């Protein structure tokens, strides 16, 4: 049976992101959920299907991220997570500008920063290069050993 390996540094980050996505899922769709008023960009969607049910998409993203952590191609799970983060960040940013009370402005502003910050880190992680699957220290030792032999052979 093929052993499962977390695919590089990005894979480890994807596992962390999947936990974050589960927390968002719990925040929007669980017995513990405290549903905030629908932000500006999601009012039409909220009227169609309540925000609580859109929260289920976070669980889906969490599952995608968890599976993506072990896969060679991690672009699809990253894309879904980034897309969701952007939707919520843009939506809350719009709501911050039009919030009727200072308390809501502060609440929506904080949400914008949280989702925007996570989106920024998501873009950073997307440019992360996974290390090659070789024993670099053993390779380096061998290169040094060969160089040492060459120096010895030429008398330098």
């Amino acid at each position, binding site marked *: 049976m093929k052993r499962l390996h977390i695919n590089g540094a990005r894979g480890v980050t994807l596992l962390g992101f999947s936990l974050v996505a589960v927390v968002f899922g719990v925040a929007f769709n669980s017995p513990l959920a405290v549903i905030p008023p629908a932000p500006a960009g999601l009012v039409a969607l909220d009227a169609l299907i309540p925000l609580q049910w859109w929260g289920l998409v976070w669980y889906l993203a969490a599952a995608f991220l968890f599976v993506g952590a072990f896969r060679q*191609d991690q672009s*699809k799970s990253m894309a879904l997570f980034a897309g969701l983060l952007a939707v919520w960040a843009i939506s809350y940013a719009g709501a911050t500008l039009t919030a009727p009370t200072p308390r809501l402005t502060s609440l929506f502003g904080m949400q914008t920063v949280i989702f925007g910050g996570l989106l920024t880190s998501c873009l950073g992680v997307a440019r992360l*290069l996974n290390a090659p699957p070789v024993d670099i220290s053993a390779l380096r030792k061998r*290169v040094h050993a060969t160089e040492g032999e060459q120096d010895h052979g030429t008398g330098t």
Partner: protein
Amino acid sequence: MGPELSMDLLKTALTIAGGVAAAALTGWLTRKSQKESAHITALTNLVDQLQEEVVRAKGDAKQVPMWRRYAQKLRSQIYKLGGEPADADPDLEL
């Protein structure tokens, strides 16, 4: 359709368009990074193979003086037996 509903729909459309753009950008950046990772892996493996080749070639090179000494011994043996050893190829550096 009231103006308020049209505004809500417009805002939702803009929000979702932003989400799709972010998803596309992230997917593209991830694929680009994965391609670069694959190149680095291929280059590292190539260096690894080259090192192995160098070690093997050095081992082979160590055999050459021993072969030369053996050939000289064989030639002197042939002379002692009164024979004439075959000429080496003109290109061969002894």
